[in-house]
């Protein structure tokens, strides 16, 4: 009896142990509860997902734009950014002989934004190759859109960094960095490729996803949109092609190809006598998941109230160098339109400025990606390159008059030289495109970096941002 009990206890014991150890559970493969998976979208996107990524491309093309503008503007001595981050008036201006760091916000933010957009475009291209939900011709429409944005972003990279990695479709196997000339050639080819894609699908009329910021490229108010969508958002393909060619003209000028630029301009929305502000814009809103205008700064209220601390301060040289209309005695209208006198001059970090920015009226004001004013200047530059000096002179005088309220330029000779016109063209670009991320690249490509003013003992001039550390260059 006793033995039996003992046996029982042992069996019980073993049973418990075995039961304990054989209890198991199998976990299901985890899905991210917080977002759609990239692999899933690339392998088999729905129409809705294709459209979402297409919109994402446009949305992310604004990433880093604010910092891009203030950093390049500071480096080009167009402005100072007086804010909490001392690097904006330190490193960026080479204060005390410091150099630009390749792992600080000013060298990485823009770069990350540009390549994020490029990646999103590549995700769309990959998804298009694999999805079966739409026809090939419609796929080309998406492709043309994606490649145009890629090219635009690559130009931004080249302007700030002087070189770019072009082949980044496979993130595990990146292509090399190309020097400027090779890279800009690749960008031009990409734009032509994009145009080709758009042309093969032009019969479809318009994009099946909304594109913002193209509101006024072509007046389509008389047309009835086929799908009844808001007209501003249904960008027709031919309209987008105008944008593609405008970018192509810019790329051609940057590549030194004046003729090529003039050809591209013909198919763009360039209009020598047209409204200067027509163009494609980055739009902003306070909506969820959206972005704000990163270059807007709240204006100082009045002389009674002290200055607001966080401001984009205009570099005094830009005010002081501005031309005065010899007849009216008024300063270049671009100065009065884009800036305002601070109630009191600002001093920070040994820098002084009397004016603040008024480039944008509020924090959701759109920012131009490219507008007719720039295209007229591109036309002038292309004409100089193509040796059509009279055309250049005409274009520049149009800018002087329409944008600056100035009379025609007196070169001291009726037929100014290419050098004179180039100087005038750069001067007009300096005022027409102030704080729009052009001056740094303009001074670099015309070897004028050394002419930039230094404001403090020990400051340095930089013409290009260092490639971010993570690229392992």
């Amino acid at each position, binding site marked *: 009896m006793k033995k039996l009990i003992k046996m029982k206890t042992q069996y019980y*014991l073993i049973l*418990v142990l075995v039961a*304990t*150890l054989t209890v198991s*559970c*199998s*976990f299901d493969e985890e899905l991210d*509860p917080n977002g759609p*998976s990239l692999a899933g979208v690339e392998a088999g996107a729905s129409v809705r997902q294709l459209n*979402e*990524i*297409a*919109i994402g*491309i*446009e*949305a992310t093309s604004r990433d880093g734009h604010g910092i891009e503008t203030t950093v390049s503007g500071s480096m080009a001595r167009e402005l100072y950014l007086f804010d*909490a981050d*001392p*690097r904006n008036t330190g490193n960026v201006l080479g204060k*005390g*002989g*410091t*150099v630009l*760091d390749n*792992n*600080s*916000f000013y060298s990485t933010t823009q770069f*990350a934004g540009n390549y*994020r957009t490029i*990646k*999103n475009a*590549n*995700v769309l291209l990959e998804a298009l190759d694999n999805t079966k939900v739409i026809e090939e011709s419609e796929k080309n429409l998406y492709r043309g859109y994606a490649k145009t944005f890629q090219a635009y972003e690559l130009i931004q990279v080249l302007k700030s960094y002087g070189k770019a990695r072009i082949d980044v479709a496979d*993130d595990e196997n990146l292509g090399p960095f190309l020097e400027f000339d090779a890279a800009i050639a690749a960008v031009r080819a990409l734009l032509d490729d994009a145009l080709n894609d758009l042309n093969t699908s032009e019969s479809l009329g318009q994009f099946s*996803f909304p594109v913002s910021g193209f509101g006024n490229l072509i007046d389509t108010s008389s047309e009835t949109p086929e799908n009844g969508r808001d007209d501003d*958002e249904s960008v027709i393909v031919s309209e987008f092609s105008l944008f593609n060619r405008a970018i192509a003209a810019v790329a051609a000028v940057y590549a030194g190809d004046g003729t090529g630029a003039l050809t591209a301009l013909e198919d763009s929305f360039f209009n020598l006598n047209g409204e200067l502000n027509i163009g494609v814009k980055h739009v902003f*809103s*306070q*909506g*969820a*998941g*959206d*972005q704000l205008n990163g270059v807007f700064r*709240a204006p100082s209220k009045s002389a009674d109230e*002290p*200055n*607001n*601390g*966080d401001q984009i301060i205009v570099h005094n040289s830009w005010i002081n160098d501005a031309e005065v209309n010899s007849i009216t005695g008024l300063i270049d209208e671009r100065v009065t339109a884009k800036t305002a006198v601070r109630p*009191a001059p600002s001093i920070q*970090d*040994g*820098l*002084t400025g009397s004016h603040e920015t008024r480039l944008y009226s509020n*924090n959701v004001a759109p920012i131009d990606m490219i507008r007719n004013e720039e295209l007229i200047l591109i036309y002038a530059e292309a004409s100089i390159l193509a040796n059509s000096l009279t055309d250049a002179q005409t274009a520049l005088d149009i800018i002087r008059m329409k944008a600056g309220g100035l009379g025609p330029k007196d070169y001291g000779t009726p037929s100014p030289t290419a050098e004179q016109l180039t100087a005038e063209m750069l001067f007009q670009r300096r005022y027409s495109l102030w704080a729009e991320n052009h001056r740094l690249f303009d001074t670099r490509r015309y070897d004028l970096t050394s002419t930039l*003013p230094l404001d403090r003992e*020990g400051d340095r001039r930089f013409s290009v941002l260092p490639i971010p*550390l*993570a690229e*392992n260059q």
Partner: protein
Amino acid sequence: MKQQTHFSRMKILLFLIFTPVILLAQETITGKVVIEGAGSGAPFVNIVENGTDNGTASDIDGNFSITVQALPTRLKVFALGFGTKMVDVATAGEITIQVSESTESLEEVVVTGLGSSVKRANLANAVSTVSAEELVGNTGQTTVDGALYGKVTGVNITSSSGAPGGGFALRLRGISSINGNNQPLFIVDGVYVNNVEIPSGLRFASGANRGNEENSGNRLADLDPNDIENIEILKGASAAAIYGTRANAGVVIITTKRGKGGKTKISFSQDTGVNIIQKKLGLRPWTAESVFNSFFSPNPDDPAAEQESREAAEAEVAAFQNALQNGGLIDYEDEIYGEVGFITETKLNASGGNEKTKFYVGGSYRDEEGIIQNTGFDRFSIRGNIDHKLSDVFDFSLSSNYVRSNSSRSFTGNENEGGLSYGYTLAFTRPWNNLFPDAVGNYPNNPNYPGNPIFVRDNALNEDSNNRFIQGFKLNTKILNKEADKVKLIFNGGVDYLSNETYVYVPEIHQGQVGNQEGFIAEGNNNFTQFNTQLISVWDHTALGGDLGLTTQAGISYLEQQADFVNSRGANLFGGQTSVDQSVNQAVDQIQSTQKDFGYFAQVEGNYKDQFIGTLGYRLDKSTLNGDPNEFFGFPKASLAVNIANLDFWNVEALNQLKLRAAYGETGSSAAFGSVFTSLVPSNVGGNGGLSVNTKGDPDIKPETSAEFEVGLDVGILNSRVSLEASYYNRKVSDLILSRNVPLTTGFTTQTTNLADLVNEGLELAVRADVFESENFRWNTGVQFYLNRSEVTRLEVPAFAQPGAGFGTGLGTFFIEEGQPVTQIVGNIDPDGDGPIPAALQQVGNVEPDFQMAFNNQFTLFKNIDVAFLLQWKQGGENLNLSRFLTDLGQTSDDLETAEGQARLGTAADALRFTEPAGYVRLREASIYYRLPSKTVSGMFGEVVEAIKFGVSARNVFTITDYSSYDPEVSVNGGAGLSSGIEVAPFPSARQFYFHLNVNL
């Protein structure tokens, strides 16, 4: 029938043999065991005739009676929680034996497996134990982690905020993870508790870069330190291996107070105190000349600009002069940080019970104001712990704790143009500008920064409140209870539910909001539910005639943690409104996560005559956090302790303990939730929903693992009056999970994956001595010494700046580099300014201290006065003081009137300039208590009151340091990952003074 007859005969035989002996030598000693100092009876104390198995125990009042064979004799008096005492008795009759409460009790047991424990004397690891007395006995403590400063070897505590109510990070034996979890696993009464730092979303108003820059508290703050009976700290993998994949950063096992049975004891205490800023940096002693020089920049090339600058500087001088004539400069540091915060804490608990059921119920309320107006922390905690014995087979325990805590932390830490963080605002605020509201309550704008600190202090809010329920349970089933074999089944676990609400409000009239967001509200609703359960079988087997004890256990464990963060934000507020609803622009984000772990474990412990004690164990874990959720990872352990002093040949009386020990173990840590996924995130434009790539996941990610080898020597001299514990460890962390910067051209910025190996090695020494013991003077002391060194031994990617742990190589950052310590700070330094030598990366500092020491001393004077102090010394280690960067830039650093300060201003603003030594010596705790003699107490209150004690104490009394800012213990990036030693505009640390009153009924 037959058997019984036989038995009866035996009985008679025994009776016949022993009766004469008993009759011959019957000497009875009676008396009372009393607790030294308190004078109250000590219940359940063992009294054994030394060298025999003849013994008894004192009753509930401490009375005992023991019959011994002959006199004189020696009685050994001992009990858990009391020092062992030998008493020589020469004559029979009434005696009084005084015993003293001890934390170094020989028989102290330490948890080593999930279902078993072992006597400290037999332990093969250096497990630090902190008793209630050590934890909260000296002075008032807000949080458990903050209370551990200087009390444990091998621990490094970082404070990310001086705000009341948490903001601490515990590192055990160096860095165990770079990107993942560096915080130990906290287990309270068997429940895995949540120690999350919850971001409030204030970064969307302040411009801070990440949630970890919001200076949130860590939620261990919800646990009332006064409830704790003891804390055991398993510092490394060799001790913590049986906890597997959650134990890479060590395990902190917290046991709360439980009823001991007997008379119901009631204890009441009231603490009253103040928070005062530890150190003020002070106002720069401006002169009119220095004002002018600070704001004038000569510009010989541009006379117009120079003139403008001159005028601006002159305007500042005029404002300065004007201020001097109208009441002087305003010390805004004092205005913001100079508040005296009031602290009160009331505690009441009762414990008692009978043989079957024991209980402990305790409640406390702590209310603490910070050194900034409108900041503070309060916590209401109520606990009920019940142990019930159903039968000889079943018993169960329940531990229930409800906590409600609230804090108001205001705005500190890093920001970008928010105008909120005081450190930033103060750095740029000039003391001649009056920022106080006028008669109708309008606050002037700050001319030099987008925020008026007075306005922010008075009107902006950053608050959180927590409702928390922690419920633990344990059911023991004794299946078999025989002499040589005991088998029990333990089913335990618990739930930790935390409901957290955060609230940030920045009025639309705040300077930084005007023209921007136009008012901001963030309301967080965050819910966390954690379950864990274990089923363990434990088999105790005795063999070799009792010489060999074997404890075998095996079991399974399951863990599930759910979190749901919802943050709703509103901007562009309707005038004066404080609800998200009353805003024009709204945004919500949500992050959900569920993680599950499942594991098997088994362990065998063998103990041969307390001479050789060995353990072998293995744990297998899988987790949904890993790339393959069903792949098991194994974590072995093995250890051996040899008690040389227990070996038969040992005859050195003075050395009562000499133990050599060695242990090896492995643990793991899975990646953070989400690391396996590459997902798309919303990125909208023009009112249309877009998707974008974000971070890159690793679908093959596996846990990072630690393998630790530890050896040690424990020595006890003169019955452990002096004891020494020495340990050396070497811990290799393999497959470290890193969030590395990927080439930005991939379109991603970071990827989290297994990339590196790291080694930590270190030394820990602890000496404790009862230096002096006499009637009127007792002194015991403890000295701890420890150090840790780390090195990255493998890195698959080029060296990189750790994201989220610094501010780029321009200003200094943690930098992961093969062959270097993981704690190094690196900056891009140009050695000759503009000269021919190009700038290059350079190690500018290392936050790892050379060593740390703590001196803990307790004195008892004239039986009734207790004096104690704890001195902590951190030698070496550097901080990156970027607060100074801000004050230099704003020209407000306190030393800028000195040649040294001006010379600093002239140097390049790089990491080298802001690296400062961060060593210190600090009087961490000091206290004096007076215990009313028991006669006085009974004279005053009769039988009602048992003991009364009162005293004064202080925390952070003084600090000797070369560090120029508020506190060398600082971290701008919260408690996670690699964070410590980088300072940007912190909440300054406080010094606390208390008056205490304790009454026991």
